């Protein structure tokens, strides 16, 4: 029996049981026990999110239609452009949507503002199957706020033909990465192309055992020997011309540079697969896990969850919807047709059957770091990015980056 049907049945049974027992219940029933006492018939809910592509919109709409059919609810998907602006205006103005997308990056801001409801006990029917790293991404101060809808990770996209020609295997260590970049750099092709910003450079810091901050984002760790090692490795790659920024090869981002054949390797996330299929269908590509650094493997995960508003008018119904969408079946239905990954380990193989080439992305779930800081920390990341750009342009050094970012971070973290 489908999840939604199960909900309705339980709800109906509970209501019937209560009615038959003759007493009206203690009036507080619905408020204190969110599970199992909710009738979804005719309930109107608004799910606010953004529109990624025609295919994704259609998949989500199909899922919602099924939910509506089975429960009699009336859930509407409301994709809006300029999501942050629209959502914040609705929240600040006092008209929050019932369920809305929450990017892991925005979670701390929303929690601190008190607009997100934490997951009540027992509402999710299969939460053990969710990857720990993803659950961690949506846990703040020990409380889990929302189940993830899907996720992406960073991996190494490379040109299999170029590698075969040079007799190389995809690199698994930093040294191999460097060697491969060197061997593959030619006059009109760079070895590696990578965006010049912390969402890319950060993986190397983690691979060296360092990072911008500690996992709880309470103190800066950029000024540590490990972080320094990571930074110097990257800086050297750029300095020696083995790595380039996308703009150096006339591209807007690394995916485009790789698609145009201007680089043999690129560090990007799952979305690059869709972009390559759409804009550069003739380009051959393969994916490998990011090479391990001195402290092991590391990557970033970019993930979004379904959050329920703290002031939602029907929290029980909202959570029922969230549970339906994030169940293993829901997750698979949603991610079947395009290259984002389901958040449940149990459907891992089903998804891989459809996308065998993308195993490297999926493997990243084991050792991914969340993309998340604290409110107000964006300024510090901005300082990092600014100096990273300066290093690549040749007018700054790793020391200056560390010093500036560290002092900015201390300021903000207090």
């Amino acid at each position, binding site marked *: 029996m489908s999840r939604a049907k199960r909900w309705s049945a339980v709800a109906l049974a509970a209501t019937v049981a209560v009615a038959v027992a003759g007493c009206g219940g203690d009036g507080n029933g619905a408020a204190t026990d969110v599970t199992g006492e909710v009738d979804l018939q005719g309930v109107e809910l608004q799910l606010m999110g953004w529109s990624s592509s025609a295919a994704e919109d259609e998949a989500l709409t199909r899922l919602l239609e099924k939910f509506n059919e089975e429960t009699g609810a009336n859930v509407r998907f409301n994709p809006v452009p300029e999501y*942050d*602006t629209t959502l*914040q205006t609705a*929240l*600040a*103005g*006092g008209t929050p949507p019932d369920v809305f997308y929450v990017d892991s990056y925005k979670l701390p*801001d*929303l929690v*601190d*503002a*008190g*607009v997100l409801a934490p997951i009540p006990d027992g509402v999710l029917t299969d939460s053990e199957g969710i990857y720990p790293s993803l659950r961690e991404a949506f846990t703040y101060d020990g409380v889990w706020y929302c189940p993830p809808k899907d996720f992406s990770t960073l991996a190494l996209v490379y040109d299999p033909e170029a590698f075969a020609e040079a007799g190389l295997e995809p690199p698994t260590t930093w040294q191999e990465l460097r060697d491969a970049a060197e061997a593959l750099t030619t006059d009109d092709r760079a070895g590696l192309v990578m965006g010049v910003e912390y969402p890319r450079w950060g993986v190397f810091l983690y691979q060296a055992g360092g990072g911008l901050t500690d996992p709880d984002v309470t103190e800066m760790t950029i000024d540590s020997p490990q972080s320094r090692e990571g930074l110097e490795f990257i800086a050297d790659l750029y300095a020696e011309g083995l790595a380039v*920024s996308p*703009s*150096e090869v*006339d591209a*807007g981002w690394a995916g485009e540079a790789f698609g145009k054949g201007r680089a043999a390797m690129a560090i990007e996330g799952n979305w690059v697969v869709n972009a390559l299929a759409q804009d550069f269908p003739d380009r051959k590509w393969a994916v490998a896990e990011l090479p391990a650094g001195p402290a092991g493997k590391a990557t970033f995960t970019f993930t979004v969850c379904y959050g329920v508003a703290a002031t939602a008018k029907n929290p029980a119904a909202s959570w029922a919807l969230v549970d339906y969408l994030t169940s293993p079946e829901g997750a698979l239905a949603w991610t079947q047709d395009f290259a984002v990954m389901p958040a449940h380990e149990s459907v891992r193989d089903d998804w891989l059957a459809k996308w065998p080439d993308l195993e490297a992305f999926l493997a990243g779930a084991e050792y991914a770091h969340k993309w998340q800081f604290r*409110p*107000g*920390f*964006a*300024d*510090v990341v*901005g*300082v990092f*990015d*600014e100096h990273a*750009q*300066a290093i690549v*342009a040749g*007018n700054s050094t790793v020391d200056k980056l560390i010093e500036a970012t560290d002092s*900015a971070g201390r*300021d*903000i973290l207090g």
Partner: protein
Amino acid sequence: MVTLGQRGLARAGGRGRRNHLAGWLFTAPALLGLLVFLVLPILVTAWVSTRHWNGITSPFDSQPAGLDNYRELLTEPGVRRSDFAKALRNNFYYVLGVVPVQTFLAFVLAVILNQRFLKGRGFFRTAYYFPSITSSIAVALIFTFLFQINGLINAVLPGGRVNWLDNPNGLLHLLFRQLGMEQPPAWLAETELLGLSLWEWLSGPSVTLTAIMLLAIWTTTGTMMLIFLAGLQNINPSVEEAAIVDGATAVQRFWRITVPLMRPVIFFVLTLGVIGTWQVFDQIFAISFGGPQKTTLTPAFLIYTQLFANSKGGIAAAIAVILFFIIISFTLLQRWLTRER
């Protein structure tokens, strides 16, 4: 025959009849709407600038902050202040570069396209107006393509491979380097204003910002041209004809007759230009996102990022308030500089 000019009549008290009732009746509807939908939100914003507002919950639930936001932006050393300083510096050069050029270009175009003997006036006017209405995506697409390292602009420029889109070097710095000054003198490098050294203030617009300025001029000249065209309709052609008969050249007619008679409209376009350029946001958001190295950061862009990416609504409001005073000052300055003498 009436021989007094506009000004003469005004001083005689005849022009503006003292008509308080009519004056207020005429302006009341518009004023009411302005008060409700513009002044009120502005006042709320000004108030919010003295609060710690996260931009996510209601501003009325925020905690008081006194002048903390202003301190962070103006007096406390830190990344917020230096970012704000960079934004001010960048926008200043942007205003200086865009406003005069776009005003002058639009005026000349309007005059040319107003000549009665010109065939195909309608076609030309619409053609020159097109960049103002063409989708900014198409414009940005062409822009990035033209300014690529292997693009057209570099192909026709003598001396080559300039990186336009990712180039943080300031024009003034480049000029100084040409003139032999590689390193700044100590007094420039060490004196600081708002967290930036004077040398950094004197960088000039970065190459990328310059490219964006060219783009802006190209897209807004059409709109200004339209306004000038409308203004030119109010000039009686017999004045010009008389001047032609009397032997004045085109240039003389331009400066001695057209310009003075277009004074109110010129003031309008200049003011519009100043107000608009100090709030530049769309191109930054679409093309450079503040980079490279924060050389295309502007106050309006900072407002957006602080409010919607950093949960710092109070800071965003404070930036808006400071920007407001800057714009008003520049407007008054512009008015004084172009006053009738």
